């Protein structure tokens, strides 16, 4: 039940609704909130409970591939993920790991990279705005060039602006380790060599963004994991049970 009764600290991060024609959801009307874990409560008050770092759905929708109602649905998902271990309105690394692996302690090279890329503010946690902006790239309708660029940053482990051969090998080894797949050193070398030769068309020993883009356009399945079909139906998966804010106070 503690999720439904706002603490005073949340009031400070309440978005300023001055001048905005449409009042935000959950604002000064009686609302009935059903969160995704099935808890339910009604509170009639002028306060609303947003997580710290909340950003207006209308703003996020205008800057991403999502509609306003999709952003609202994502907020439901965000609340669920960000409260799984530390209920502070941010997704911590452990909560991220828990969401993906159902295991908060499972460390992984790739999960670390994705987490870092989602953490746009570089403050060690993922806030709602960062969550939506990053997930936007995974939307089926997001521009392919965005997906290609994101994948490049993902694989550029040491952020040098190039994917070096040893980075590629490191990632292959990590994948094999994660899958409990044992391959001989020779086999790994052959795979890495062949891929590197195919991708490094300039032959300068490293893969730059241009080479990467060309490579992906020749092999589109390489960015298959950059699209989440679920995002197209997010409003069905995470329905927001908040009653329409058009209900005026006087009627209640």
């Amino acid at each position, binding site marked *: 039940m503690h999720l439904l009764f706002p603490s005073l600290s949340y009031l400070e991060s309440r978005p300023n609704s001055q001048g905005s024609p449409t009042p935000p959801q959950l604002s000064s009307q009686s609302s*009935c909130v059903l969160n995704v874990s099935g808890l*339910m409560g*009604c509170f009639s008050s002028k306060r609303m409970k947003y997580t710290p770092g909340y950003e207006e759905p209308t703003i996020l929708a205008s800057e991403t591939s999502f509609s306003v109602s999709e952003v609202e649905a994502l907020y439901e*998902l965000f609340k669920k993920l960000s409260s799984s271990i530390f209920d502070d309105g941010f997704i911590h690394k452990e909560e991220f790991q828990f*969401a*993906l*692996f*159902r*295991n908060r302690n*499972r460390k*992984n*090279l*790739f*999960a670390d990279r*994705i987490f870092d890329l989602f953490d746009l503010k570089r403050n060690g946690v993922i806030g709602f705005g960062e969550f939506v902006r990053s*997930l936007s790239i*995974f939307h*089926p309708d997001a521009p*392919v060039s965005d997906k290609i660029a994101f994948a490049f940053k*993902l694989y550029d482990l040491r952020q040098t602006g190039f994917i070096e051969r040893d980075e*590629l090998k490191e*990632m*292959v080894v*990590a*994948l094999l380790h*994660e*899958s*409990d*797949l044992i*391959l001989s050193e020779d*086999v790994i070398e*052959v*795979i*890495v060599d*062949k*891929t*590197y030769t*195919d991708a490094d068309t300039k032959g300068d020993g490293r893969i730059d963004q241009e080479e990467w883009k060309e*490579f992906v356009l*020749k*092999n*589109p*399945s*390489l*960015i*298959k*994991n950059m*699209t*989440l*079909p*679920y995002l*197209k*139906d997010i409003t*069905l*998966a995470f*329905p927001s*049970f908040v*009653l*329409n804010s058009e209900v005026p106070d006087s009627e*209640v």
Partner: protein
Amino acid sequence: MAGIKEDQWFKRRYTPVNPVEDKEATCIDDESLTIHESASSEKDADSSTLINAFELIGMSSSLDLSGFFEKEDVSERRMRFTSHHSPKELMERIEDIVTQMGFVVQKRNGKLKVVELHKDRNSPVNLSVAAEVFEISPSLYLVEVRKSCGDAKLYRQLCEKLSHDLGVPRSQKLLNTEFLV
């Protein structure tokens, strides 16, 4: 909870949504929604079919954010194992096995899609599974079987039958339970 639901005030604007029903009706087929490989990207006869390192890396479960959206653990939705049988042989055997189980098979781009038609006319698709084979080395292949939607139990039965018939050794079952610490 029941008492609140009965209340007039609650009923006023509330439209109950049944997420379970909706999920079954909209089977998210990731094959159709991801970038479609055009026919012109067919590999020419000379180039090797060896798996691309980035493709291999891309299989990492940590790069698969579907965990945010799926209730089931990834091991319930995806199975991988290695085999020394050739891709042609593997695909043929998979096709035989699934057809015997009553599934319909569609083939496209070297991938095999398995669909079971639901008995009920109104909801035609009950289980949708894709199978793909990758070459790791000239004598070693990686098979991936993925459920895009449908009944978990049916999927498990299918996987068990495949594992059994394709002789997947016990130790390889680790690939399926990689998340159990």
